[in-house]
């Protein structure tokens, strides 16, 4: 009984220790997208239309070719992709190892924009008219806040 109380107290202390950090972090309103997520969904849908799915480096190339910027940094790109896959706006799966092996390269993690992702993109585009001057290009700076 006493051990249980100690355990609960320890859990409360540990979770509580995160609260100041969580409080400082920019929080996303439910159903909204970060600028980089909008970029990823737009590029992802374009790649998906031609290739069926897309992978990290193909996405970085596409994002770079759209505005002539440098390739998106590893940290920003893969952090955003994993977050989007977790929230269900992207569907992620590993490529069949046999096909990667036949081409003599490491297997790719393939992504597809889900129906929920498409809806979120349409909503984001309707809510914020994206102009070059008004949209902060967080992706180019290599930093996200989630």
């Amino acid at each position, binding site marked *: 009984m006493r051990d249980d109380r100690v*355990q609960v107290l*320890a*859990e409360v202390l*540990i*979770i509580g220790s*995160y609260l100041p*950090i969580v409080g400082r972090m920019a929080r996303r309103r439910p159903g909204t997208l970060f600028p980089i997520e909008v970029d990823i969904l737009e590029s992802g849908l374009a790649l998906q239309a031609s290739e069926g799915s897309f*992978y*990290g*480096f*193909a996405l*970085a*190339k596409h994002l770079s070719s759209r505005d002539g910027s*440098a*390739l*998106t*940094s*590893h*940290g*920003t*790109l*893969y*952090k955003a992709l*994993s977050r989007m896959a977790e929230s269900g706006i992207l569907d992620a799966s*590993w490529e069949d190892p046999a096909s990667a092996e036949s081409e003599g*390269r*490491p*297997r*790719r*993690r393939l992504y597809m924009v889900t129906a929920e992702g498409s809806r979120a993109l349409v909503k984001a585009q309707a809510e914020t008219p994206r102009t070059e001057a008004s949209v902060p290009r967080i992706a180019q*700076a*290599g*930093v*996200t806040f*989630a």
Partner: protein
Amino acid sequence: MSVLTSTSYHHAVSRVSRWCSWYTRDVDVEVAATRRDELASDFYEHAIWADESGTTPRAAAREILGRAVRGAPADLTWRHAQRRKVALADPTRFRRLRIEEAVSSLVLVAASAVLGWGLFVLTRIVLSTIGEQIRPGSATAVTIASFTALAACGLVLLLRRRTRVGGALIMVLPSFGLVHFGLYQLYSLSTTVGALTFTMPGWELASNSLIVGLGMFFTAAAIWWWPEHRTTPADTSTRLKTIGEMTR
């Protein structure tokens, strides 16, 4: 020369992979493996694209390193978020990790302070030798230099998980040597230390307590980190057999 086979590309990949191994440590094994595999694919695709677009191996390596550097803040916040998830799933394990980190930090701070003290005393000795206040190469100066070198070795060993037990044990010696001989040397070089020795009644007790305290602290750290000895089934059965024979 192809980018994939170039040395500069391999160096860049090796550096970014090391960085990846660092920030994925203590993260869920599967999540960490996904990040590593995804990066491995990215490196390969980058090299192929660089070859196709006529980018030199050096430029491709610079691009890879640049992408890693620009993404480092995002990597760290990702790591923090992943560890938070682990904490919420298993608070007890995470508490152990935090205690471990706190112990490591305290030992490193103490070891750095001992080394810093040694370097300070050495600097005073060098300045006094230049000012011809003391003769060069005195036995005390050589002893302090040796203990400072030992403290530096101890600090280096403390930085690696595998060698930190040895590092903590080694730090016991310079803790004694640098405080004892350092104060002895400063007695003749520093007006402050000289005045404190005469005016402060508990000066010797304080310095001896510091030596004993540091020695016990580093010994305790070595015991804390000492590799666990797991009792093998064979050991247990032998012990049970012996107890059984004793009771008969």
